[in-house]
């Protein structure tokens, strides 16, 4: 409540929550105390004009109003004005009071801004997606043999695009998980997806653009597989495996492999169209990465490696493979693999040994000393190795060198080193930091061997 001279004559206790003043601190002071400096002069004049025409109304219709807290910070407000005629004298007298009702609208403003932002983004995305659809129709038309052919291919490509978008929409456009994208893009081609498709890799959230591009590539790969490759034959299978390298000092790289097997004998294509250009040039360019195609007789192989930084949403990525996405349980991941375990802590050695055995591996070791590890590394035909780095004062490097020489894939498992401090000699080699959970260790070893 404010009198005709602009002095505060009454406030309710809520004022403290809103403005930070105790009621007693405000009584008798000018109402401009509650207004940011830059509006104060103007407010004195506006107050006068309200007194001359004291109709009940919202203050400053159409303008943004701000309140000023005791600590000097500002917040958006909405203010209703009511004239209270105290004396029964004609309105506009100095002793009339004005009741100002102040509402803090910070939350509403924020949500309005958010809605505006979403609308702008939506407009932008819509335009972009229409542009993509348009060039897709042009590209598809160029390599199609008939109108029916065009209709089929074009519709399938639009479906693939829409499928990636559904995944993104489900996560409110933050991104799409690699595993979800792989499964969703392959689903239309598989009657019984679980038996024929094996996906394995860390849980990673692709940025929207990356999801769109990778989604299209997976769609084209699946199309080719169903026409010429593993999915054209009942016994054919597809394995999709991805990893992120924790390389010392260098930017991390994402790698995804598509392996077909069990299909008809593979022959390199004689003619390449837009699909080929999607899986090769377009993804390579989109991710500034490298794509390799191998037309091995036993099955087609596609591999993409690219810098991880631009592909994945921040926070959406679990660098340490904490949650592995996989179709099958740990029980079979290392079936029949001979794994060398080097670990000088007996308790830890036992538990690593147990978890790898549970995953079906044959354990070589565990070796607790450098000598023992070197002997085992040299003697046995190994599928892979997990190496503790510090071994009672020695470091495991000679063993690692021996394995590298024999082309045995290995990973470090250390409490002292991480990907940033690993010596440059081992740049690109995976490293898990202790403690890691059994799933992480098994998963990392399985990926390592699968990608070798």
């Amino acid at each position: 409540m404010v009198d005709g001279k602009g002095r505060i004559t009454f406030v309710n206790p809520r004022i403290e929550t809103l403005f930070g003043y105790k009621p007693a601190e405000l009584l008798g002071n000018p109402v401009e105390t509650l207004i940011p400096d830059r509006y104060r002069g103007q407010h004195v004049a506006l107050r006068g004009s309200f007194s001359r025409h004291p109709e009940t109304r919202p203050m400053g219709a159409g303008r943004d109003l701000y309140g000023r807290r005791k600590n000097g910070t500002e917040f958006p407000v909405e203010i209703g004005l009511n004239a209270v005629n105290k004396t029964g004298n004609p309105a506009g007298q100095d002793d009339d009071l004005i009741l100002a009702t102040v509402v803090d609208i910070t939350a509403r403003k924020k949500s309005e801004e958010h809605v505006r932002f979403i609308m702008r983004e939506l407009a932008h995305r819509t335009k972009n997606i229409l542009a993509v659809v348009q060039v897709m129709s042009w590209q598809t038309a160029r390599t199609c043999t008939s109108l029916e052919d065009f209709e089929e291919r074009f519709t399938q490509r639009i479906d693939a695009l829409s499928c990636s978008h559904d995944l993104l929409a489900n996560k409110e456009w933050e991104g799409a998980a690699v595993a979800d994208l792989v499964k969703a893009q392959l689903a239309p081609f598989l009657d019984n997806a679980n038996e024929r498709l094996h996906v394995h890799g860390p849980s990673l959230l692709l940025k929207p653009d990356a999801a769109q591009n990778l989604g299209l590539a997976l769609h084209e790969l699946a199309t080719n597989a169903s026409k010429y490759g593993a999915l054209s034959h009942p016994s054919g299978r597809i394995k999709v495996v991805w990893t992120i390298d924790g390389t010392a000092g260098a930017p991390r790289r994402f790698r995804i492999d598509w392996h077909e097997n069990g299909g008809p004998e593979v022959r390199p294509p004689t003619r390449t169209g837009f699909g080929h250009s999607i899986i090769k040039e377009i993804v390579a360019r989109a991710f500034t990465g490298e794509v390799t195609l191998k037309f091995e007789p036993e099955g087609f192989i596609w591999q993409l490696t690219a810098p991880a930084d631009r592909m994945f949403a921040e926070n959406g990525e679990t660098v340490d493979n904490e949650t592995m996405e996989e179709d099958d349980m740990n029980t079979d991941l290392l079936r029949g693999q001979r794994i060398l375990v080097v670990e000088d802590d007996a308790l830890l050695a036992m538990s690593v040994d147990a978890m790898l055995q549970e995953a079906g591996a044959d354990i070589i070791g565990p070796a607790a000393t450098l000598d023992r590890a070197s002997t085992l590394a040299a003697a046995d035909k190994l599928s892979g190795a997990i190496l503790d780095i510090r071994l009672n004062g020695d470091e495991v490097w000679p063993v690692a060198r021996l394995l590298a020489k024999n082309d045995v894939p290995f990973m470090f498992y250390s409490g002292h080193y991480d990907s940033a401090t690993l010596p440059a000699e081992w740049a690109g080699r995976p490293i898990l930091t202790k403690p890691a959970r059994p799933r992480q260790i098994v998963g990392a070893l399985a990926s390592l061997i699968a990608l070798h």
Partner: protein
Amino acid sequence: MISEVLYCHRILVVEDNALLAISLEEMLKQAGAEVVGPAVTLDEAERFAAEEELSAALLDIRLDDEEIWPVARVLAVRNVPFVFSTGHFDQDSLPAEWLGRPILVKPVGRQKILDALTDVIRHH
């Protein structure tokens, strides 16, 4: 058939969507142009804009989280005509600095792209 309306012209293409970039490149090549780029990042685009011999440029405005303005300024200084292409801005919301510059709002057909480029080259 599209005739080679851009025969022997060197066109800088800046577009961060790989699918669009490759398609634009093919469209322009079909029309006889020599394509510089496509550039996907601002750095790359700036380098091409500063160093390459160019007849015209087609500039996507938003690149990831950056905007194309520094590239446009380099081209303006070098007196290379250019056309903006975007899903974001339209004639009304283009910054005042670029008033009068042609802008294509996505999605935009092949013919319109070629028309816009031949237009800026002819009126240059």
